[in-house]
């Protein structure tokens, strides 16, 4: 069993100390990526719940020399565990149990003086969710901030604060200040970093009139910035002068405390406004001159802190979530909601690399009534094609769990703030993956200017690369396209429309040279209709000889070459939405998804129904050979519609019998899909010898997480995916100063020079001051040597 498609943007990522690795929370594991190549290096898997925080910490002091190579981090998860990792070796070092789901964690570097020396002792400040209180009461304080001593693994002191929901904790870079946003207030704690005791923590509050969403501390000054839900950015300077400074004798002179509310402990408060909706992140640059902010617009705004001037990094393509700077601030990364993490080269903010996860489904449900999720599966190359929000089709390799390519389908600039006026409604791939067809719809404005476009794509140089072959505007005048099917083994496709007809498209051979065949564009060969009923689905049989088109609730069978009606199969209860031939067997499977759902299997040879169920099926797929088909059924009626994450079940049938062969229960089934893909023979060698036609079943749920398994084996395969990952070999590269200016020449220590005067000599006082003055060691050193040379050495008595 292989799982994949995790979200990379559920929590802020973290850079390693040298900036070469990026630790990204992905589901229950932490994926370590190389920033140079954006390839996966290793994965840290020990959490049982989703990982919510990862903090890279300096190595412990006792292992000073060896720890230079190793890198350590703390992670926290919803399973209530804090785990200490050596993330280069991907080993668990220590585990601390919290017991409650941890939503956020910071580990400020706190030193404790023991026996004169300062020993860094990690304390974790975690934001946990108190599960003992009921969920439905909004007023209850379910979030707590607790302190854990990580060396001893136990809680220290009492909870710092209680909030209605677990808040995200932000620490300043020095670890001196911690802060959270709590509705309209900002809570800031001053942490004694030298000699930590929970009692010595002091706290101030800063108030605002809107709900605050995020905050950031200035790296050097006592300045805090916070963003609110309306898009304003507030900057308090010199906060906590009265309370945090050691001499609290600051006279309260109210000489123009601009913008500070009430008697809040700050000097000034400035407000900036550019964002039109809630600010998602704020981050100061490491030198403290700039402030980065971002939100729904997909634009990073760079504020010059002193003047308030703005620069922009526009067109990142999706609402932004997190922004993290590397320690040497040459790279930063920004997480977008469409599951992409962009690595930005820092001074000019150029996108260097992107860590691309599977893109998320289009969020809005106002898409002209068709809220069916569409997926195209490439059976041969084991890819899934997902239409994305920014008018692209993303090809995602299911076995490798990596993005293969992205294809711009509609030539339009995507802005995350715009409402959807155009979307890709259909992606269909031929079974060998050589041909692709997309349908995109421009939604009309008050019935003006709607447009349906059918595009045929030819296979490019490698899997997942397609070249545009033909654009057909309004293929069925202004009616929408309900289904596109490719004829196996031929360059023929059929598109059926709700407007009452279907068209058979062919691609003509234009020229055939010695090594390559060239195809011209696609042309309509024939048009068919049946009693002017809307055509809702179409399918070719496995050998391509029969074309089945569903005319609302009637299945019509056609000869695709002559465009002649061959037969009609009796009616179903309601319009058919999905139709397909079951492999090479003579059966046809149909799905109805309306209020009277039906799953029916038809015998094509005698035009009769074999068997049927009245279950609501979200999706179905048939194996291209054999007589199996799988159905993703929802457990309860879809008309409830309120909860989007419905549980479902995958049922595997053999066409002959109505009894399911196997069944699996799955979560988040609504909006999901199932498909067969060709088995990867390299995955398990014993399977390849047994049956060459190994087939796997893929289940993609509504948030595009997927699982691949072998439907014929009941037990879990347990194929460890790490063994098959392409692990990127790391090459040492210079970082920081060395990356810009090159290695510094090794400074020859002055020792050799200073050694010169100490050459053993019979009369050292003669040579001790010889040499030019700038090579002489300091007089304090010379003096003792000179005096000792003057003293006469007494022979040792023991000899």
């Amino acid at each position, binding site marked *: 069993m292989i799982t994949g498609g995790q979200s990379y943007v559920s929590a802020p990522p973290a850079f390693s100390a040298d900036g070469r690795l990026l630790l990204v929370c992905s589901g229950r594991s932490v994926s370590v990526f190389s920033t140079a190549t954006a390839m996966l290096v290793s994965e840290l898997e020990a959490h049982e719940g989703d990982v919510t925080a990862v903090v890279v910490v300096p190595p412990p002091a006792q292992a000073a020399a060896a720890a230079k190579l190793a890198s350590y981090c703390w992670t926290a998860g919803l399973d209530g565990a804090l785990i200490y990792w050596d993330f280069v070796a991907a080993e668990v070092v220590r585990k601390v149990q919290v017991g409650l789901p941890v939503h956020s964690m910071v580990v400020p570097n706190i030193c404790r003086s023991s026996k004169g020396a300062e020993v860094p002792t990690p304390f974790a400040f975690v934001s946990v969710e108190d599960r003992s209180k009921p969920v439905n009461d909004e007023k209850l304080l379910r979030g707590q901030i607790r302190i854990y001593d990580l060396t001893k693994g136990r809680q220290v002191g009492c909870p710092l604060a209680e909030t209605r929901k677990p808040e995200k904790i932000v620490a300043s870079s020095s670890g001196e200040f911690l802060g959270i946003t709590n509705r309209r207030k900002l809570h800031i704690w001053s942490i004694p970093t030298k000699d930590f005791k929970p009692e010595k923590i002091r706290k101030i509050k800063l108030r605002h009139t809107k709900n605050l969403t995020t905050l950031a501390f200035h790296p050097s000054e006592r300045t805090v910035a916070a963003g609110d839900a309306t898009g304003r950015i507030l900057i308090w300077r010199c906060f906590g002068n009265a309370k945090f400074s050691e001499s609290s004798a600051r006279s309260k002179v109210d000489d123009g405390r601009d913008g500070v509310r009430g008697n809040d402990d700050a000097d000034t408060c400035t407000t900036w406004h550019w964002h039109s909706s809630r600010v998602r992140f704020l981050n100061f640059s490491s030198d403290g001159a700039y402030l980065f902010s971002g939100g729904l617009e997909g634009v990073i705004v760079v504020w010059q802190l002193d003047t308030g001037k703005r620069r922009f990094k526009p067109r990142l393509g999706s609402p932004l979530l997190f922004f993290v700077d590397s320690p040497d601030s040459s790279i930063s990364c920004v997480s977008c909601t469409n599951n992409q993490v962009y690595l930005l080269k820092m001074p000019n903010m150029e996108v260097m690399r992107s860590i691309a996860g599977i893109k998320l489904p289009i969020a809005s449900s106002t898409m002209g009534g068709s809220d069916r999720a569409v997926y195209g599966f490439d059976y041969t190359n084991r890819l899934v094609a997902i239409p994305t929000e920014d008018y692209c089709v993303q090809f995602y390799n299911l076995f490798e769990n990596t993005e293969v390519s992205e294809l711009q389908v509609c030539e339009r600039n995507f802005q995350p703030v715009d409402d959807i006026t155009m979307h890709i409604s259909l992606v269909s791939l031929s079974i060998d993956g050589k041909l692709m067809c997309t349908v995109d719809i*421009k939604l009309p404005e008050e019935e003006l200017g709607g447009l349906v476009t059918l595009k045929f794509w030819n296979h490019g140089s490698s899997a997942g690369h397609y070249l545009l072959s033909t654009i057909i505007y309004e293929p069925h005048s202004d009616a929408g396209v309900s289904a596109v099917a490719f004829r196996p083994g031929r360059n023929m496709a059929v598109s059926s429309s709700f407007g009452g007809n279907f068209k058979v498209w062919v691609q003509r051979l234009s020229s055939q040279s010695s090594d390559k065949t060239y195809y011209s564009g696609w042309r309509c060969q024939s048009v068919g209709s049946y009693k002017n009923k809307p055509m809702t689905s179409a399918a070719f049989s496995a050998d391509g000889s029969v074309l089945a088109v569903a005319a609302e609730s009637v299945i019509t069978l056609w000869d695709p070459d002559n465009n002649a009606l061959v037969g009609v199969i009796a009616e179903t209860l309601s319009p058919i939405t999905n139709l397909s031939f079951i492999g090479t067997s003579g059966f046809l499977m149909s799905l109805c998804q309306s209020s009277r759902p039906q799953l029916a299997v038809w015998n094509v040879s005698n035009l009769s129904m074999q068997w049927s169920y009245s279950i609501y099926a979200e999706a179905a797929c048939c194996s291209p050979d054999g007589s199996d088909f799988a159905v993703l059924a929802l457990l309860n009626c879809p008309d409830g519609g309120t909860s989007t994450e419905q549980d479902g079940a995958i049922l595997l049938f053999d066409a002959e019998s109505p009894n399911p062969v196997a069944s699996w229960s799955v979560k988040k089934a609504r909006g999901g899909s199932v498909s067969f893909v060709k088995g990867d023979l390299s995955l398990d060698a014993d399977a390849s010898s047994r049956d060459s036609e190994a087939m796997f079943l893929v289940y993609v749920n509504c948030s595009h997480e997927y699982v691949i398994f072998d439907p014929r084996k009941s037990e879990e395969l347990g194929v460890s995916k790490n063994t098959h990952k392409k692990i990127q070999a790391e090459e040492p590269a210079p970082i920081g100063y060395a990356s810009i200016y090159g290695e510094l020449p090794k400074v020859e220590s002055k020792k050799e020079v200073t050694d010169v005067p100490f050459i053993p000599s019979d009369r050292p006082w003669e040579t001790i001051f010889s040499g030019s003055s700038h090579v002489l060691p300091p007089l304090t050193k010379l003096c003792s040597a000179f005096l000792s040379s003057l003293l006469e050495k007494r022979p040792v008595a023991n000899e």
Partner: protein
Amino acid sequence: MAADTSKPFFPAAPHSALLPSRSAASRSTPEGSYWRAFRSSELVSGAEFPITDLTFAPAAASGAKPTLAAAWSTSVHLFSGDPLKSLRRISVAGDLAFSPSFRCDGALLAAGDKKGVVRVFRSDKASAGALRTLRAHAAETRVVRYPVAGGDKLHLLTAGDDALLAYWDVPSETPVFTVPAAHRDYIRGGAASPADPNIFATGSYDRSVKLWDARTGNTGPSLSFLHGELVESVLFLPSGGLLATAGGNVVKIWDVIGGGRLLHSVESHVKTVMALTLGKMAGTGEMRLLSAGIDGYVKSFDFGKLKIMHSLRHPQPLLSVACSPCGSVLVAGSAKGKIYMGKRKKKAVDEEEGRKAVSGEIDWVSPEPEKPVLRPNYFRYFLRGQNEKAKEGDFVIEKPKKVKCAEHDKLLRKFRHKDALVSALVKNNPRSAVAVMEELVARRKLVMCLGNLDMEELGLLVEFLCRNATLPRYARFLLGVANKVVEMREEDIRSDEKLRVHIRNLKRMVAEEIQIQHTLQGIQGMISPMLALAAR
């Protein structure tokens, strides 16, 4: 922070592949502008005799000596100075003179005549009569050449229509050797090698070119190859390793070191090429092979790139061409007795200075004009380095390419939707206007724009709809827009006379279109039963 180039930018425009590509405007090459800078004038005109030969004195010649000699009728015409002034004619024994040739120091001038007698004059005192008279030829001597290289002042090569080749010791008036029947036909082309004083090339009407070595001359040609046409002129290129021959309308370039291998053949003239010469470009010091033909063209050929760089047209057929050693004067002699002189205007000063500065240098090297040191009081100081070209190994950082936007695109980017629509309508390009409307639909702004148009703009829109609404390509969209306009702006339209006219037109167009559709449907109704019958 420029816009991220990783994401493509799509302006609201019709698909670029569908637009016709504009042919690139013909650009002038720097080479062309160089040759065009020669101001053409007529040096001599009036007589009807052809100018068969033109030659410039080598650069070493100075003082009052003539710099240009032209064979013209029965005399050799001499010119000197700058601008060229006619000196006097040297009469050559009352018969047609051919092929004047200056000695390498420019002190002596030799010329042949129709009877085959070759005379040698002092070039500064030509009227004093011939110093030496060389008699061996029986027919006209069209080839008289002093050696170019090595400072050889004693010898002379002559060849003529009697196919005799003679190599003279001039002071003693006796031939060192003669080659009778060197060719099987008239010898009309000859050249001395710029690399070796002993090497000569001759070309003849027997279509062959022969290379002679004065040291072994009497034993026969050291190299011989076939040009293929009647050879009118031969010329060594500056290295001495390449030979250009002109015959027919073809100029061929041969590698004589490689044993007479044909390197390149230029067929740029329409008629016979009569003369070849080397021209030096004053600016860069590059050499060009200039060829003049009966068709009146002087063509400049870059033998480095093997490419014709420029053609200069003259009104009369040309027989001879010459270019001054520093490349500032180009003369061409016509068959009708005219000498056309082309001259670069401002370079005249340079030439004069150059002559003064470097007189003892090798031929064909013009002095480098000394670059003035740029100071901030000079305007060029602020422009320095702007025309610098990147060298081979330089790392070029390109200026980020600017995305070109149409005006409506710029307005759309500023969210000035109505202005964008109006600007597209004014442009009177239905494709872009429809593209803008579709973009507005995608932004959900079209209806608002239609409502906001003032009367004049509404007139524009309705006029546009009149013209384009029934075009099949846009009909589905634009008829919807027309409906919407009529529905929303009914009162405005009623109140304005102009708009009413437009609407009447629109109505008529729509009625016509409906009529057409009815007819088409009728035809379809007639045809479809026939098709159904035919299918059975």
